[in-house]
């Protein structure tokens, strides 16, 4: 490790003060005089034709300023595939879809007005699961699919419910299976889950009569939001301004475009007035996006020595009623489809499927939690069947320097060390050690699962940062990576201070973007901000230093190459006694006679990931800029009479390269693992006839402080990344990814039942235990 001044230090984050004192303003905390309140009328049906909408009574209610619906707001949106109307048009496709909205002088009046809107529906057959959706004569959720606009890197299929099919082909699959000593085939499933940010979604919009639109939004992507709003509402970028306050948790659920168009649609009808729309918790469950459900089929061929020689995988994602981010989730899961393994012959197919369920979107892990549930359960099954140690089986097969990954990229020393992650978890788990004596109905087991993920982003996902010197040579660093809780304000300040060779206390991060003033940023998604914007910050500092050196060179009668800058001065390298203190130059250098040269110093830096599109037929190419490898392990205890599962130990080791801030890195890892644990043992959106039944905290539970494992450990493996800022790598999403498989594998080790379907509730485990017992009984 280099001798860093700011990097690697547990600096407290600047935003924490605002948040711990209650000063931090979130969307719901923002008010304007004369502001109106919006409310949304939602479909009670999962699939129905809208026969008639009558808003006349609502419009007449005293205090109502605007009522809108598809007829007044005929706009559509979509990140990659434009399939989603702002308001249900002609028909509703999921329970909770917006049908109309009102803005009134108070929330109470707006609510009252909603009750006065009359909508007549005629119910349609519901596409209630993936199998139904794929059936030959399935009702089509989007009969007009092929007429929609979409980016050419996605592949919808005519006359089906498939909105994207991603293909991966590597080697020769048939030859591969011919070489196999044994072949394993399995199916796995996981349900839809919700992000559950603690802050419900919200936006405040004003549409001026001169055509200018301002939107405050709790969002992850102010610039992409601006882009998508201006596209949907047919405006110019310069006329749309998006301002992002603190965001109370995103996890993907506030990426891209979400509920903002509803506020904009109301603002358009109530020109010149602010319209505030804050979702209730129930609306946050049904009216935003969710993680897709997924069914995965996997077939793996293994050599006698336990080397994987061929693998065929099909993933079917329940994308819900609109494709949204799901299009790209399908693609990202598709190109990583085999996980971090070195397999010569691969056939992968990843499908996004429309149903009448809640809209699938981006979710921490972006398809990787889903694919690793399939792959990492399968690897465990194979290891046990081959009588191999599951950790050893993985060590043999995972990517190593020289391996080629699923999309054909070559792994190098700098890509990260998968094996070290496995070793670290195994060691901490006392892998293979004997177990203590316990009562007959209490069984303990250990399991682990590996993972990999790269930021999933288009090749033109660019970033910009600005570094501004103040009069006293303190610095303000500007960027539009959103502080959604992950700690980018701290990390980017540290990177900035390091590059400036300046004490961190002299750097202030202006991290709450305003698209009118802040530098461009594609989106705060894909665990990419520290990595991508960090590089932009470094470039911005270098640019500022170059500007300082240029002026100083003139003063010294020298050339910039002979100068250097540190946190306090610009100086001649050869003669350090010749220097100019930074405060004397950062606003321009003034000679004793008053003559001034130079000017205020602002450095601008950009970053572009340098990727390529993938081949349509093989999925081969360069779609991943960097990979983070990890391994997660657990020790569990199962009560065989009740199915009750207790997690004794949960461990995650990630090769996150150089750790910028150990405090926030630990927070990401532990927070992610606990969110992953919730998805493993508890969380599920439950449906009946296409209707969600648990859209509230009463019946959609998340883990509390009382539900933590007895022990939880985060381990940093630090193989510097060749392209990351100071060698840093992404780690935001990864900790969530393989917890379910690690737990399921530990359950298998404990009680010998293999569970193919999440969540691993006590009841689910007990059902499997009873089935196993009944099976045994039959065999006798």
């Amino acid at each position, binding site marked *: 490790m280099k001798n860093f001044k700011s990097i690697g230090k547990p600096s407290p984050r600047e935003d924490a003060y605002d948040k*711990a*004192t209650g000063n*931090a303003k979130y969307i719901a905390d923002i008010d304007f005089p004369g502001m109106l309140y919006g409310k949304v009328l939602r479909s009670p049906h999962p699939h129905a034709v809208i026969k008639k909408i009558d808003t006349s009574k609502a419009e007449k209610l005293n205090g109502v300023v605007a009522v809108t619906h598809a007829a007044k707001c005929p706009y559509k949106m979509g990140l990659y595939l434009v399939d989603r109307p702002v308001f249900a048009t002609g028909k509703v496709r999921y329970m909770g879809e917006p049908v109309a909205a009102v803005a009134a002088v108070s929330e109470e009046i707006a609510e009252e007005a909603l009750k006065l809107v009359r909508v007549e529906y005629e119910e349609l057959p519901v596409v209630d699961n993936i199998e139904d959706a794929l059936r030959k004569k399935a009702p089509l959720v989007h009969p007009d699919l092929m007429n929609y606009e979409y980016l050419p890197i996605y592949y919808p299929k005519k006359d089906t419910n498939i909105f994207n099919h991603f293909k991966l082909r590597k080697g020769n699959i048939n030859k591969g299976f011919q070489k196999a000593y044994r072949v394993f085939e399995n199916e796995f499933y996981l349900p839809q889950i919700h992000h559950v940010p603690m802050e419900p979604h919200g936006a405040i919009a004003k549409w001026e009569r001169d055509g200018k639109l301002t939107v405050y939004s709790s969002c992850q992507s102010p610039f992409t939001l601006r882009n998508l709003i201006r596209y949907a509402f047919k405006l110019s970028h310069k006329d749309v301004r998006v301002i992002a306050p603190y965001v109370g948790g995103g996890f993907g659920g506030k990426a891209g475009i979400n509920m903002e168009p509803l506020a904009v649609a109301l603002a358009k009808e109530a020109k010149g007035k602010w319209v505030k729309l804050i979702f209730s918790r129930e609306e946050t469950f049904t009216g935003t996006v969710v993680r897709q459900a997924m069914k995965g089929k996997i077939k793996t061929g293994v050599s006698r020595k336990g080397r994987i020689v061929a693998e065929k995988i099909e993933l079917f994602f329940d994308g819900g009623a609109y494709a949204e981010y799901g299009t790209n989730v399908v693609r990202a899961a598709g190109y990583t489809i085999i996980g971090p393994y070195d397999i010569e012959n691969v056939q992968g197919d990843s499908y996004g499927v429309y149903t009448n369920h809640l809209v699938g979107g981006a979710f921490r892990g972006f398809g990787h939690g889903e694919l690793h549930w399939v792959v990492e359960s399968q690897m465990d099954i194979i290891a046990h069947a081959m009588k191999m140690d599951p950790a050893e089986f993985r060590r043999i097969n995972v990517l190593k320097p020289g391996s080629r990954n699923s999309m054909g990229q070559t792994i190098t020393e700098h890509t990260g060390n998968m094996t070290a992650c496995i070793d670290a978890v195994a060691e901490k788990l006392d892998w293979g050690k004997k177990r203590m004596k316990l009562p007959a109905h209490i069984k303990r087991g250990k399991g682990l699962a590996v993972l990999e993920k790269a930021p999933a982003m288009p090749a033109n996902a660019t970033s910009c940062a600005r570094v501004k010197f103040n009069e006293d040579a303190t610095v303000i660093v500007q960027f539009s990576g959103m502080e959604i809780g992950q700690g980018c304000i701290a990390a980017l300040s540290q990177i900035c201070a390091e590059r400036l060779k300046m004490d961190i206390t002299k750097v202030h991060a202006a991290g709450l973007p305003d698209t009118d003033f802040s530098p461009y940023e594609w989106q705060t998604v894909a665990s990419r901000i520290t990595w991508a914007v960090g590089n932009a910050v470094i470039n911005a500092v270098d640019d500022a230093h170059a500007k300082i050196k240029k002026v100083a060179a003139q003063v010294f009668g020298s050339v910039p190459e002979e100068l250097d800058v540190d946190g306090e001065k610009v100086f001649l390298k050869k003669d350090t006694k010749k220097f100019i203190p930074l405060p004397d130059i950062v606003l321009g250098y003034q000679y004793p006679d008053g003559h001034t040269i130079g000017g205020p110093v602002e450095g601008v830096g950009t970053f572009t990931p340098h990727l390529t599109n993938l081949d349509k037929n093989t999925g081969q190419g360069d779609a991943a800029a960097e990979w983070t490898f990890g391994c997660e392990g657990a020790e569990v205890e199962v009560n065989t009479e009740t199915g009750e599962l207790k997690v004794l130990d949960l461990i995650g080791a990630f090769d996150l390269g150089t750790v910028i801030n150990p405090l926030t890195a630990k927070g990401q890892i532990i927070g992610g693992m606990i969110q992953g644990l919730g998805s493993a043992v508890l969380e599920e959106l439950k449906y009946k006839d296409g209707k969600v039944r648990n859209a509230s905290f009463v019946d959609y539970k998340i883990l509390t402080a009382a539900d933590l494992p007895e022990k*939880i450990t985060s381990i940093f493996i630090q193989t510097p990344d060749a392209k990351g800022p100071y060698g840093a790598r992404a780690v935001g999403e990864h900790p969530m990814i393989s917890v379910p498989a690690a737990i399921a594998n530990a359950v298998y080790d404990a009680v010998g039942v293999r569970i193919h379907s999440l969540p691993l509730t006590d009841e689910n485990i007990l059902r499997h235990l009873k089935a196993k017992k009944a099976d045994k009984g039959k065999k006798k």
Partner: protein
Amino acid sequence: MKKGFVHEINFTVNGIKRALSVHSNETLLKVLREHYGLTGAKEGCGGGECGACTVLLNGSPVNSCLVLAVEADNAHILTIEGIAAKDSIHPIQQAFIEYGAVQCGFCTPGMIMTAYALLQKNPDPDEAQIKRALSGNLCRCTGYVQIIEAVKAAAKRMKGKRG
């Protein structure tokens, strides 16, 4: 206090005596946020399930979304805005900052108020007691571990101060 939909209430908020007319259906959370601009308490669910709106009502932490403002007549209310000293923030706030207990921050004010009430009652809680006390305050970011560490650290510091 008078009959009907509108009521005059007198209560103390963060040490300041206040009189206010409220509607019977207004919650304490709404009144604190909208009348006094005390937006530290957040609405995370409005149904008493998440703890983001935690304030102290006569010394006990409650979900202010489930307290009617009229119920708070004669009560003492303490919010996140009322616990700092003149020149320094409260040791619990400081510990939350230092120990990485804050991520998105939406649960933070409620979490701190619950911790504040816990340490008032039990200056030296063990880990199990802390977890139990915090079980009504949901956090989706941190996985709670650094929050628990912060509460332990704050307890230690506060005890040290008391001598």
